């Protein structure tokens, strides 16, 4: 082994400059092509437009669906707009970025809906397991990069976002689009070069050891501060919050504390965990509905929603 040769400061500066240049070029390239990285990111970039439409539309009832891929797969948007037995005109809007939960939904609502009011709007949140609890794992990078402003952090304290490590990831996400999109970039690259990448990753993600989507279920001592804050925001913009428990193959229970929270805040719960006609073969995997399941789910949802979207109900809200 030899000792390092005597290096010149100029050389080391050039090394650092070149490394930084590569990172900056990568950042620029990603920023220019971000919406093409994945369908999910493309959807995230349409959220402001969806929110604008939802606020401007003057139908009898605007249903703003807030959720993740469970809700996205379960709601048949065109179908829901034809299913209005009470002859009210209904418009549906889906904001359902993958892998999101209560902290993301809180920020999305505050960023895009808080300043607008639309008294005929319902915000319908689809959830499963512990996705409404503060203890559900958060993705601070995504929160910082896509959904939250720095002023939202206090309201999400209960989720652990203010802890050093999480907060620093939040900051990294808000600064670098490469960092916030790393999962999408990684998937694109590895899907190209690694055989069976997508299929095997999906299997690995579903295994109990690596599952993040289902983390947080069954945890004791759940709290619902972020959810309560979100309800407060929705109320302050004159909208009505409705929650729906989503179906998955392996059923789950709803925390008693959460049920008490719904009752005390006057939030209707549409329990759709066991829709009669939905069979196991209507799931693409263990949690996402296929097209047929989606159609049946949507019909069941509208039926359950009828009491809330009738004219009488709208009048009481007004």
């Amino acid at each position: 082994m030899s000792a390092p040769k005597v290096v010149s400061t100029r050389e080391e500066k050039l090394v650092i400059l070149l490394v930084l240049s590569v990172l900056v070029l990568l950042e620029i390239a990603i920023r220019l092509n971000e919406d093409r990285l994945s369908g999910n990111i493309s959807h995230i970039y349409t959220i402001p437009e969806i929110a604008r439409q939802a606020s401007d539309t003057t139908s009898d009832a605007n249903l703003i669906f807030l959720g993740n891929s469970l809700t996205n797969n379960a709601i048949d948007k065109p179908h829901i707009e034809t299913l209005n037995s009470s002859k009210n005109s209904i418009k549906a809007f889906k904001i359902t970025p993958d892998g999101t939960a209560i902290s993301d939904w809180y920020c999305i609502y505050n960023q895009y809906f808080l300043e607008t009011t639309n008294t005929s709007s319902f915000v319908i949140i689809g959830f499963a397991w512990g996705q409404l609890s503060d203890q559900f794992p958060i993705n601070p990078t995504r929160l910082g990069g896509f959904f939250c402003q720095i002023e939202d952090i206090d309201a999400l304290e209960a989720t652990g976002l203010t802890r050093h490590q999480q907060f620093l990831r939040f900051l990294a996400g808000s600064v670098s689009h490469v960092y916030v999109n790393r999962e999408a970039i990684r998937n694109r690259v590895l899907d190209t070069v690694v055989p069976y990448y997508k299929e095997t990753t999906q299997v690995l993600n579903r295994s109990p050891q690596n599952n993040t989507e289902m983390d947080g279920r069954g945890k004791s001592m759940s709290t619902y501060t972020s959810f309560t804050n979100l309800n407060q925001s929705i109320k302050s913009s004159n909208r009505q919050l409705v929650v729906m428990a989503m179906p998955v193959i392996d059923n789950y229970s709803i925390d008693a504390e959460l049920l008490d929270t719904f009752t005390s805040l006057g939030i209707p719960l549409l329990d759709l965990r066991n829709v009669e006609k939905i069979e196991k073969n209507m799931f693409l995997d263990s949690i996402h509905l296929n097209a047929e399941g989606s159609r049946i789910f949507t019909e069941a949802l509208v039926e359950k929603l009828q009491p809330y979207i009738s004219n009488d109900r709208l009048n009481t809200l007004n």
Partner: protein
Amino acid sequence: MLFNSFIFWIFFLIIIVAYRYLPHQGQNRLLLAGSYIFYGYWDYRYLSLIFISTIIDYFVATGIYNSSEQQQKKRILLISICANLGMLGFFKYYNFFAVEMSELLLLIGLPVPIKTLNIVLPVGISFYTFQTMSYTIDVYRGKTVPTSRFLDFALYVSFFPQLVAGPIERSYNLLPQILEKRPQLKENLVEGIYHICIGMFKKVVIADNMAPIVNSVFSRPVSDLSGPEIMVGIYAFAFQIYGDFSGYSSIAQGIAKLMGFNLSWNFKMPYFASNPSDFWQRWHITLSAWLRDYLYVPLGGNRLGKLLTLRNLMLTMLLGGLWHGAGWTFIAWGFYHGLLLIAYRVFEFKQQGVARKLMEHRVGKGLRIIFFFHLICFSWLLFRADSIDQVWAMMGVLVTNFEITNFVYYASGMLIFFAAPLVALEYWIEKSGDLLKVVNSHWLVRASIYSYFAVMLWVFPPLTNQVFIYFQF
């Protein structure tokens, strides 16, 4: 605090900035306080163990040095050995031996339940107890003069870059660097950055991306696996453990270097070893050297004839296995490495003439490296398996089920994508014979390698942070 966390780098930034503006003694106080904060951030209660170890070994070393009688020196040394091994034994091995003893007594018809304790293994206890013990033993042997500066000795015990996972530093290497003023050289910066970059790359990009593959293979029922799936899981673990542990050592070396300290090399391209003896001069070098100097040599080393040399090798490796963890798989791992060393000794004695020439030829050496890598991989099966039963079951599947599934293609693709560039880089370094080849190459080459590391670190970290494997030892 983990080296692969943002919080550590903010902590280190504060330390290094303050460090530059302090005089020598101020630097040492800062590092001591920083080291206790670093460790206490994980669990402040266990700081007391480091403190107790520090006090005992400080006074024991002084006592040995001031004592004129050999028997008295020995008695004082025993205090240090008993205290350090006692702490290690209690926290690391008590439950293991309690359970095994209970089962043994039950076997001979004495159902005596021995209570197990709900205790957490203090991070890094195996490393700092070995480090402090080496100090008192070296003072006893007259290789080290004890320091009278308690706070500087406390820094030697708790120096944060290598506190929780090594390298295990000898007092005659690290202590003088603490006691004397450290020059701030431009070369330190260049070399320090290199160690940190490659260490982070090995840990975050290689080790942590191999973890889901390894976990998938070792957590599934063996009946659900095919032989090639197990094989690729073992390959992935070989790179996971190497990336994890050598990555930690490199980062430790790098951050110490930025402060002017030279820590020992703990890894030197171990998968290019062509025999067991070569391997232990490249893998966890500071532990191998420790075991050699404080166990193998006192047992008689190779001075007592062939048979006793082989016995000493086996005992050393068995205890080396036990050092890694309280479990039969670790003991089996040590036993297997003992067998490899013994077989190599025997084989080496008999190897002459044409056979020796063939082995030394370039092709022969390449084949030996590949063959020996697979022998090492088998040892990783013992190391990673949850139980000896799992080892047997996996070995059975390895030789009976040859189905190449989609998982095998996937895992092989991931291995090539993440680990192959590292193997290529290490081959280049190995061939050059210069461990600092990257640092000593043209700045454009260096910048290209660092850019690759930076992009991989920024874009390809694992989706969840993994802790360092060696923290549990």
